[in-house]
Structure formats: structure tokens, C-alpha cells
């Protein structure tokens, strides 16, 4: 793997990653936005409308036909949160030309991606009202559809409650009211704002990388955009801003979903943060973790239980699916296991296994082109410059003392339980 990054204009970074093992080319272009209530829904709606039609391919069907012609190239448009940043990502992937015999394939891919982003289908100076209306409906349905996946819903609701009053509580698609208030004019204005003011990150991965990005982009945008947003780092306040610390939510479900949210109180820039990554792995990383052994293997209370770290917000989340009558018992076991972490009640073997598991996952990212692209995008967004090797070394350098120290400021912030009864006895 050979990685390099350069700036080709004001606020435009290009990461080039040479990897000859993949049979496809992948190009991504992301706009970085602040995560804000007033624009989250707009950010989500823009790519949805852009995929409906371009200047040369005025319908969704035409774009799809073009993609099929390009040997089943896939165009993905999505919006995601990275901490309190809202990332609008456009990506295109298709099979390497040497397998299909298609000439100038990479240019064809990139030109189509640029066309979708920069040459939308415009009528009377704005987006087509029909497309906007339909995509508004679809977006509302998607927001309503959050309840369909109970595990994910419980997790997201817990974060919302825990971070009430913080930007991080904003849902990646915004909210239904905001979507309803959008019209094709306001959306078009926001689209232009995205183009004019967002930091842009491009990544390209594959065996063939010969695209002149500067030349291709010059035709589409001003390379010296003036007003590039400066998006602040997340606040990782340890105080609950507002709201309750224990929430029971009722839904007609078969199994209760318990989410415990903790504040780690160490910023990711701190040396101790990687020690906490190891701590969380020992606690609830995999099938040999403390939570898995005690909640599942010993007590048969759950099929799944795990902990995960939300890096940019310094939050740890423990998730599990349990019967409602086991609520107190499960909570107690989790608390005891965390107390053990704080006291340093874990073995050298635990540390070694946890490090081994984390570093294996980091190394294995290299086998997936999307993961590599996302890793370097995260680096660019948080202005870090950490290679896979750096990250592995940092994890391996963590000591027992570091792990114990990293757990000292850990505080339970919010308990969220999605269950079919309002009160739990």
C-alpha cells in the first residue's frame, strides 16, 4: 500500500492509495459539514435529489443505464456522522479495466461521479420540483422507518437522550418537521452553499490511479473557493446537558434492548485514549470479553452483549438484548465488570488478547477498499496523520497502568431500556 495526500486547491484534499490487490477502482468525494439541526435534513436531501438526474442523464433510469454500461459500476450516495461532523459522501466503484477490456475506464467513472455532483438536472434555475417532492417523502419514510430495526433504534435513541442539547444528538437524516419545510428553492440554495463552503476530501484506491483531478475539477469549480468552513472539534463535556439519566421507552417488542452510555472523559488526542480502546475491548470487545463471559456464558441472560467506543465524542456504549425481568441483574453485572476494570482486576493475558484482537482488526482493514478509504477520510476530517502501522504501534504500546488510568474518569451517564412495559419491576 502506498498512500499520499495533497491539497489541489483551497479546501480540496486528494488522498491517493495504491493497492494492486483489488479488482476494482474506487473513488470517493466527500463534503464535510458541521452537524447542525438547521441543516441536517438539507444535507441528507441533497444527495437523494442529485441521484435522480443530471444534465445529460435526466432520469434515475438513465443514470442507472449508464452505470450498467460501465460494467455494473455502483454509485453510492450517503450522509453519515463522524462525531459532530456531517459527511456527505459520493462514491463510485467499478471493475478494473484489465478484466473487462474497457478503455479509459477510470476517467469514465470519475466523470460520471462529477456529473452527478456538479451538473444536476435543473429546471427554471432550480432542482426539479417533482424530484424534490418525492425525495422529501422518501426521506420522511426513512426517518419514520427508524423503528423497524429495534437494535439500531434503541442505540440511536440512547445517544439522543444521552447527548440531549449537544449537536451529537442530531439524527443523520435530521427530523421530519425540517424535511417538510424544505422546498426546491431552499434546497438548491443549500446545495450551492455545500459546494461553495465545504471542505472537500477525495480518495482514490486501486491499481490504476491516473486521474488528473486538478484538471477534471477545474472545469466544475473554482479551485480557490474563499469561504471554506472551519468546523470546530467536538465538545466532550462530562456533564449531562439536560434530560433524564434513566429512560424507559415502550414498544411492542419481544426482547428488551438495554443500552448503557458512559462518558470516557479523555479526548481522542490524549495518549491515554488508545489505552481506553484496549480497556473497552477487555470489557466487551469479543466472545472472550468480560461482559460476554459473565452475561452470556455464565448467566445465559443474553445472546449479544458488547461495548463500543465512539471516538470523537469520547463515549462508550454497552448494548444488549435481554428479558425485562433481567434488567436489574444485567445492569449489576455490567457495573461489577466495569468496577473490575477500574480496580485493575484483569490479567496480562486479557491485555495481550485485547491488543491482539484490536491490531488484527486494524491490519485487516487493508483488505477492504471501502474501509481503507474511510480510514483516511477520518484522518483527514480529524486532521490526524496516523497510518495503520502508527495505530497498531500505539495500541501495542499501551501498559497495564495506562489501561487502569484510562478507566478512572469513566462515568455512567444514561441508561436506556426499550421494552414492552413502561415500568420495570
Amino acid at each position: 500500500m502506498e498512500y499520499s495526500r495533497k491539497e489541489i486547491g483551497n479546501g480540496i484534499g486528494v488522498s491517493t492509495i495504491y493497492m494492486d490487490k483489488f479488482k476494482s477502482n474506487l473513488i470517493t468525494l466527500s463534503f464535510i459539514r458541521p452537524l447542525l439541526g438547521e441543516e441536517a435534513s438539507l444535507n441528507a436531501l441533497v444527495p437523494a435529489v442529485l441521484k435522480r438526474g443530471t444534465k445529460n442523464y435526466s432520469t434515475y433510469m438513465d443514470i442507472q443505464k449508464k452505470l450498467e454500461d460501465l460494467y455494473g459500476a455502483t454509485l453510492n450516495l450517503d450522509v453519515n456522522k463522524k462525531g459532530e461532523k456531517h459527511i456527505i459522501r459520493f462514491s463510485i466503484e467499478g471493475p478494473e479495466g484489465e478484466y473487462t477490456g474497457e478503455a479509459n475506464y477510470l476517467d469514465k467513472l470519475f466523470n460520471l461521479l462529477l456529473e452527478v455532483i456538479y451538473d444536476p438536472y435543473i429546471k427554471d434555475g432550480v432542482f426539479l420540483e417533482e424530484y424534490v417532492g418525492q425525495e422529501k417523502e422518501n426521506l420522511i419514510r426513512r426517518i419514520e422507518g427508524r423503528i423497524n430495526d429495534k437494535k439500531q433504534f434503541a442505540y440511536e435513541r440512547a445517544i439522543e437522550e444521552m447527548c440531549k442539547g449537544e449537536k451529537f444528538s442530531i439524527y443523520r437524516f435530521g427530523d421530519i418537521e425540517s424535511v417538510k419545510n424544505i422546498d426546491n428553492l431552499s434546497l438548491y440554495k443549500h446545495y450551492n452553499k455545500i459546494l461553495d463552503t465545504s471542505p472537500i476530501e477525495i480518495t482514490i484506491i486501486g491499481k490504476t490511479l491516473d486521474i488528473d483531478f486538478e484538471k477534471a475539477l477545474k472545469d466544475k469549480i473554482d479551485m480557490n473557493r474563499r469561504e471554506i468552513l472551519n468546523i470546530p472539534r467536538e465538545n466532550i463535556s462530562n456533564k449531562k446537558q439536560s434530560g433524564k439519566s434513566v429512560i424507559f421507552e415502550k414498544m411492542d417488542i419481544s426482547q428488551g434492548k438495554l443500552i448503557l452510555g458512559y462518558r470516557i472523559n479523555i479526548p481522542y488526542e490524549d495518549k491515554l485514549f488508545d489505552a481506553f480502546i484496549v480497556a473497552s475491548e477487555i470489557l466487551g470487545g469479543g466472545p472472550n470479553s468480560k461482559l460476554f463471559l459473565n452475561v452470556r456464558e455464565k448467566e445465559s441472560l443474553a445472546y449479544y452483549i458488547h461495548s463500543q467506543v465512539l471516538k470523537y465524542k469520547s463515549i462508550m456504549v454497552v448494548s444488549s438484548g435481554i428479558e425485562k425481568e433481567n434488567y436489574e441483574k444485567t445492569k449489576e453485572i455490567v457495573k461489577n465488570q466495569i468496577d473490575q476494570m477500574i480496580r485493575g482486576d484483569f490479567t496480562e493475558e486479557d491485555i495481550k488478547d485485547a491488543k491482539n484482537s484490536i491490531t488484527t482488526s486494524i491490519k485487516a482493514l487493508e483488505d477492504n477498499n471501502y474501509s481503507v478509504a474511510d480510514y483516511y477520510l477520518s484522518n483527514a476530517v480529524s486532521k490526524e496523520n496516523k497510518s495503520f502501522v502508527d495505530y497498531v504501534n500505539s495500541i501495542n504500546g499501551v501498559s497495564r497502568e495506562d489501561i487502569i488510568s484510562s478507566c478512572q474518569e469513566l462515568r455512567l451517564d444514561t441508561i436506556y431500556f426499550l421494552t414492552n412495559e413502561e415500568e420495570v419491576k
Partner: protein
Amino acid sequence: MEINSIKSEKLNEVIFDVELSNGLKVFYMPKRNYVKKYAIYSTNYGSIDNTFVPIGEEKELIVPEGIAHFLEHKLFEEPDVSIFDEFAKLGSYVNAFTSNNQTAYLFSCVAEFEKNLELLVEFVQNPYFTQENVEKEKGIIEQEIRMYNDSPDWKVYSNCLSAMYVNHPVKIDIAGTVESTRSISKELLYKCYNTFYNPGNMVLFMIGDIDFEKALTIIEKGQKNVRKLDNGITRIKVKEPEEINKSIIEEKLSVSIPLFNIGFKDIDVGYDGEKLIGKEICTSVLLEVLYGSSSAFFQELYKEGLINQNFGFQYLGYKDYGYAVLVGESKAPKEVHKRILQVAVNVSKKGISEDDFKRTKRKLIGYHITDLNSIDNIATAHINYYYKNSHIFNYLEVLEGITINDLEKRSRDFLNEKNCCLSIVNPK
């Protein structure tokens, strides 16, 4: 021991294969630049194999629903050590899954492949079931089943299968039910294990940058069953009528919008090999042309707000059963159902356009090439092809050979109202 190989010039890949003296099939695909090394050890035994003659016995036995999956859970149990711990010590990822047709155990690692392999070969051949550990597992499995019950996507699919099939055990949930799993005992688990976890019924596939000779030595040394099974396994097949069980099935769950699965039951079954693969690929091309993202069907229904981005479809074909499902969310699933059938009727009148056909072929060629980026995908896909008596490298050639006539014929034979079921999950 003879090492064979099959090459794909087009894909610039090779797969080696060996059959051990006890009948175990071993495959290896080199992937030199990959960091991960991956092995999967699978037995041709899934949830549908619920009626059989246990090895060494004469009478047929019907086992509780969900037992293959239960067995998968329990195989991780060893008398002295925890298998999870052993793999964790090596920093590896270990997992297993049970499907309708197979149970598979796998690991991926970035170091010490040989130690991992030794462990995998050892634990899969070392059942340790006690009354106590079987009882303990019931609580965990019950929570797993309840988790699936909270998944409307899974429910709508599982209901669709039960509407399509009258007798065939594919209609049974892989994990069984809370009640059925309660009747599982250690004796029954051993019967299933001894019958189906036979080397002649199993396959081991490895992929990554691996020393194949060394790996083979480890696998051979680790074989506990050295003798080849004399006769095959007697699996009792139920008689499945051509007709569907029922044409519509509905359930209410907490969802925001109705979810639907529209299933077509395949009655052209009973064969495997190239013929089966050919049918499978032909059906996939057909579904793409008729209902894919560039189809007139998709364009119209999307515009009318009848389907959204979550619409999709798949055809699954096995030797003794096969079906297509078209899935999505809609405010009017019955209308979607009607329109899907209409499309099929129109094809028999107007045929399929050359242009759509060619484009779709190109698309599937591209998808196949891109799928080969993932060693995990290759491993599971390869085993599927093996059980169907074919080879993953045949895909492109079979695809090339499909004609418009094949598609039109398949549409007439398969996409009919009489073998079509609609499953809906409605909001409460």
C-alpha cells in the same frame, strides 16, 4: 494424494483442491497480497436436514426444529478450554453460521495461520455435550430467537417461505422456536453430529497467503475419522407439491410502513451442477432486466411512491428447491404484487429488448469481478458452488452463454401468479 487445480485466465486466479483418503475435500485459493488469511470448515448439514436415518441405526428419525443451529452453538464447548479464548490468544476472529443447507465454522487471522487451522480442525471434530451445558445454552438460544422475532425484515421473509412451501423444511426457521429447542438433548445432538459431521460430508476452504503443503499436513494429522464413509447419509426427503401453501400471509408488528416479500416458488427442481448454476444465473439476469434499478418497472413504481431505495430481489436455487423473493417497503404492497405479475405477463407478449439484455450482462460481469475483492465472499460463494456440484470459476462462462430465449422461456415458466406468494408485515 493428488493436488488438482482449476484456473481462471479471465480472473487471473487459481483454486487448488485435494480429496483426503477419508473423503474430506480441501480447497485453497492463493491471495498473495491480502493481509487476512481465512479458513472455513463446513458440513453439508443445515436446518432442512431434519429427517434422516442416524448413522448405525435403521429407523428414520425426525429431530426438533433448530437442532443444526443448536449444535453449531454447542460445538464451541470443550471440556477444559474455551475455544473463544484459544482463538483470542492468537488475535483471530472466529465465528460460525447455520443456514438451510450447511453449518460452517470459520476464522480469519493475520498471523499464525497454522495454529489457528489446527484449532479449527480440532474443535469441529471434538463434540463435548453434557446435560448441563446443553441446558445452559437454551437460555442463550431463546434470546437469539427473540432477537429475530424483533426483526420485521426476518419475519416477513420467514413468513413468505412458509406461504410458499407446504411440507418442505425450508419453511422452518433455522433457529427453531423457543419450544422446539427446549426438547433438544445431548443424545439427539450426538446423533446429528455423528451422522452429518463426517469427513465425506464436509469441505474445508482456505484463502489468503498460505503455505498449502503445511496446511494440508495439519489437516491430515488432525483427522479423527480416518475411514471413508461406506454409504452416503440417508436423508429423508418430504414430498413437496408443486402448488404453493397459500397466496397471501399477513402479520402485524411495530413497523412504520408495511414491509413485503413477494416469493416465486420454483417447480423446475431436482438437478444440480451446470444445469442448476445455469438456471440460477439465467433467473438473476431475468430479474435484473425486469425489476432492476434501470427497469421501466422500477422507474414507474418509484415515481408513484410505491417502492423506494429498499426494493431488491434475489433468486436462490438448490437441488431440491428454489425460489425468488422480491422485497421492499410500500404503502400498497398488494399493488406492487399486481404490478410485478403484470411485468411478467408483458414479457411473454412483447419479449425482452436486446439492449436491456446486453447491459444487464455487462453489469453482472462487473459485479462478479468486484465481488472477488472480498476473501470472505469468495469463501462462502465457493462452498455454495461446491455443494451445488459446480465451481465459482464457471460463473462468467455460464453467464456468457445465456440467451434472450432462455430468459423469455424462464419468465414464462417461473414468474406465474399460481406459484407466487405475498407476505406482508403491517404496522400495528
